């Protein structure tokens, strides 16, 4: 065997036909993932924190316990106020007893106000926890799709389909996070442009129509 024959044998390797496209899609997907991460870091909603420290069950239980106690106390207070008590209802009671009732009512009023405030605070805390749970869910879904897309790219199966779905899901997550819609519109257009005739593109088109 001579040098020329050896070189010829060594060079006989044909790369996959769509290697360049696959790699460009991979890079586009990576770029998009980074853009989403950056956008999340900018927002005041602080998605990263919600992922690292999701609301735990203990704090939820605590909130519910406080809310239950507040409601029970409110019900008791109202019952006490409007119950058909003999001291108030009897027409023949003296003015002294009425004055006593007025005094008791004045004593309870600040407590009621405090309880009302506690209830409002508990409700606000619950709403915040719900928001964090939603954001956590969005983030998990995004990570899942990114992972699926990466695996599919490395296994060389239905790459564009999954990349498109991944991009769409990320865009959907942005909408749910309350980020500027212009950002989403641009990226949805990107999905349509890069991965036409895929399910992800069809869903991106629907969302674009909704935004317009």
């Amino acid at each position, binding site marked *: 065997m001579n040098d020329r024959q*050896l070189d010829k044998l*060594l060079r006989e390797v044909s790369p996959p036909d769509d*290697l360049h496209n696959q790699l460009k899609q*991979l890079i586009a997907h990576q*770029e998009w993932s980074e853009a989403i991460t950056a956008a999340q870091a900018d927002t005041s909603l602080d998605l990263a924190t919600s992922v690292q420290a999701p609301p735990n069950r203990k704090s939820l239980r605590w909130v519910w316990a406080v809310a239950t106690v507040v409601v029970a106390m409110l019900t008791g207070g109202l019952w006490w106020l409007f119950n058909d008590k003999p001291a108030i209802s009897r027409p023949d009671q003296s003015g002294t007893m009425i004055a006593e009732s007025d005094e008791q009512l004045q004593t309870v009023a600040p407590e009621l106000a405090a309880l009302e405030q506690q209830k409002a605070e508990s409700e606000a805390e619950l709403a915040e926890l719900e928001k964090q749970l939603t954001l956590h869910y969005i983030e998990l879904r995004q990570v899942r799709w990114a992972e699926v897309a990466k695996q599919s790219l490395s296994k060389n199966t239905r790459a564009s389909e999954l990349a498109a779905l991944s991009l769409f899901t990320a865009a959907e997550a942005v909408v749910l996070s309350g980020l500027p819609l212009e950002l989403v519109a641009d990226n949805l257009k990107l999905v349509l442009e890069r991965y036409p005739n895929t399910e992800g593109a069809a869903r991106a088109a629907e969302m674009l129509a909704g935004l317009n």
Partner: protein
Amino acid sequence: MDQQLHERRRIFESAIEAYADSMFRVAFRLSGDRELALEIVQETWLGAWKNIGQLRNRDQLKSWLFGILRNQYLKSVDKLTRQPKLELIDNMVSRSDGPNEMQQAVQQAIGELDDDQRMSVLLVSMEGWSTQEAADLLGVPQGTVLSRLHRGRQRLKEILSRQLEFDTYSE
């Protein structure tokens, strides 16, 4: 920020056009498996995308990319050798590039070279790198690359000639 991203994408897209095929060939000749080669190449580009900030000189893009490719290959070898034995045997059995027996013989012969010789032969003989470029990538003097190349090629010719002779006699 957008401009930086645009510029980075432009560099990558032109680098893919210029080097992707060559990287695949080297990854395939190193690993002997098309799927594994594709995975190594993809991981290489992802690694490059994430670490492009570490590239100080654009002129060194080619050797930088192939340096990452080499590391990815070593990682994949490490992963394979940690697999249970039966799985490893399955992988080795599936390592063929279609029915071309000559190509299988070439792959087997390349597999018999030591790592240093193999890399020098692949870069210089297969991909047309200069011996200086290969020396820069491998971090050795140019003379070392030349001697590895010479010994590697001699060994390949011996193995392949023997194989051809065997095939001829066996037919």
